[in-house]
């Protein structure tokens, strides 16, 4: 198990290296000039050149990359080209918002999806099952922005309630913070729940048809033991795969939902930075997002190995 984890961690290094090279190159290939966006269209060519030199953009590419990387490895992501603010603290403070949103959404999703998926599998082809399947299909296919709009409209028109404007951190005012977060989390949670529900239903169904389930029943097990101790644990591997992908993606920022609810999350940071061609911020946050994504996947892999004794031997 220990060597397995070490091996998986070492595998992250080339992945992150690849991501860093890729995002570095992409930022230099896409059209648009940070100096131009800062100084405006009537800036003199000399002024533009001066600014580019200040940012080190005139240096050869490999030197630029080396400078960036040596900073990153000492946890210095550089400063924003627009605001001059340090990048890493900004990323981290936005990550707390994204993290909280992800956590609440995921909890909502799992609390709904896993029990519903199990019930649907146990009562296959019943009305309950059809209900669950329709709801999960809606959850997967209904666009977030539409759901968000509907919820906001219904709350406003029917209950004359509108969520607070402006973000407040959890540690400043927990109740206000939760009030702000709960609606976006419900929006994100329902769309996550759809996929998890489908996966839970189909993998529990598949496991219930296995020979060993018959053995467990033949031993005199109660249905509760069959489902929750044996079927669910075996079904957990594909469910975890979905969960890992969703959480990994969501931790990289939920651009649309953040935008609709004006949450200062990671998605907003990246979006703004791309629009402004703020190279350093884009590079730094993309690398950070990639790091979080692979970290979540690593955790999922460790969970796999914890659940399934066959995995660490492969």
């Amino acid at each position: 198990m220990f060597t397995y984890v070490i091996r998986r961690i070492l595998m992250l290094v080339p992945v992150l290296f690849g991501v860093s090279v890729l995002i570095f190159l992409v930022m230099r290939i896409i059209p648009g000039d940070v100096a131009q966006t800062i100084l405006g269209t009537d800036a003199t060519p000399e002024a533009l050149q001066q600014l580019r030199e200040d940012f080190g953009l005139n240096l050869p590419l490999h030197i630029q990359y080396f400078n960036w990387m040596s900073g990153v490895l000492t946890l210095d992501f550089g400063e924003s080209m627009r605001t001059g603010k340090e990048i890493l603290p900004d990323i981290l403070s936005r990550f707390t918002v994204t993290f909280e949103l992800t956590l609440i959404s995921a909890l909502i999703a799992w609390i709904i999806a896993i029990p519903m998926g199990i019930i649907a599998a146990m009562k296959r082809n019943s009305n309950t099952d059809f209900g669950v399947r329709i709801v999960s299909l809606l959850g997967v296919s209904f666009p977030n922005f539409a759901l968000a709009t509907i919820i906001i409209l219904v709350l406003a028109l029917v209950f004359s309630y509108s969520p607070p404007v402006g973000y407040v951190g959890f540690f400043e005012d927990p109740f206000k913070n939760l009030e702000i977060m709960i609606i976006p989390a419900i929006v994100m949670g329902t769309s996550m729940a759809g996929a998890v529900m489908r996966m839970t239903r189909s993998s529990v169904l598949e496991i219930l048809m296995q020979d060993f389930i018959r053995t467990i029943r033949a031993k005199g097990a109660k249905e509760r033991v069959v489902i929750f101790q044996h079927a669910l644990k075996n079904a957990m591997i594909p469910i975890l795969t979905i969960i890992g992908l969703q959480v990994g993606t969501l931790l990289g920022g939920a651009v649309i939902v953040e935008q609709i609810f004006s949450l200062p999350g990671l998605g907003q940071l990246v979006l703004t930075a791309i629009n402004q061609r703020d190279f350093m911020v884009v590079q730094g946050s993309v690398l950070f997002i990639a790091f979080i994504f692979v970290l979540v996947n690593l955790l999922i892999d460790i969970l796999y190995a914890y659940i399934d004794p066959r995995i660490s031997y492969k």
Partner: protein
Amino acid sequence: MTNVLEIKDLSIDLIKNKERLHIVNNLNLTIMKKQKYGIVGESGSGKSLTSLSILNLLPEGIEVGNGHILLNNDTNLVNVSKKDMRHIRGNEISMIFQEPMTALDPLFTIEHQVSEVLKFHGETSKKEMHNKMMTLFEQVGFARPKQILKSYPHQLSGGMRQRVMIAMALICKPKLLIADEPTTALDVTIQAQILDLMNELTEYYDTSILLITHDLGVIAETCERVAVMYAGTVVEEASVKDLFDHPAHPYTKGLLSSVKSLGDRTKKLYAIPGNVPSPVELKDAGCRFASRCPFVMDICREKEPELFSVQDRHYSKCWLHDMEEGSTYEYATTDSESS
């Protein structure tokens, strides 16, 4: 001797578009205390469904349509409550399946899975469970039982897993052990060991066996009585010796002549021309073997034969034993033909 299990007029139905197809029909058999009873028949003849029906483990869409299954002459397993059935499973009747590779949960240790049986049937003392498991594991021939307890299924070979299954099946000292093709998936060299082990241990624990196989050699080695199944019904029932010495039913004769040497396990039972009819091809009227029978007569296609008694406790479901219909029928190898 007392009956452990009595199956009477059992039919097992496949329910399709609200129609009922009798996959197993009019099946009768009785297993006595400590008896080793075999069911033999080609693949698709309904052996597995019959065995699954005993513990109410039939797959979805298939259910018992008719008849009863009596345990110890009093409990009808066809309509016991779920709770009572749970108490019987693994405790009074236990089961071993064909595929040792997939019969155990891959995510739990052997110890967990074997101790579950004891737990389900009321054992709470960890020490007691451990002792019982150690005893059984030594009896099934594990040199290092402690190590086996700690391992996961994928770390054991097919033969070892089948030993675990046997230990698990016998740990509550059941009255009946049902073994559905317990050696079919194993190497030939291991097959005999597993059969010997089952024989030995069921004798030790006074457990009756219902052994299901497509292999007449296995029956010859293990069983005392045997039922020959064809297309969902028992066509002949006799002691193993009678069956091999004086087969009465045309199907049994076909089977026996297709196995030249009884010890030869490589021979399969497919030497009779044609196949077992699938459930959809089955007609309710007439003899189910009629499409393949060399002796077929007009009545065979119209009326299902009764179970004729051809000798003392030797039964055959064939019109040839009816004096009026089959007066010319030769019981080929028989010397003491009854009237």
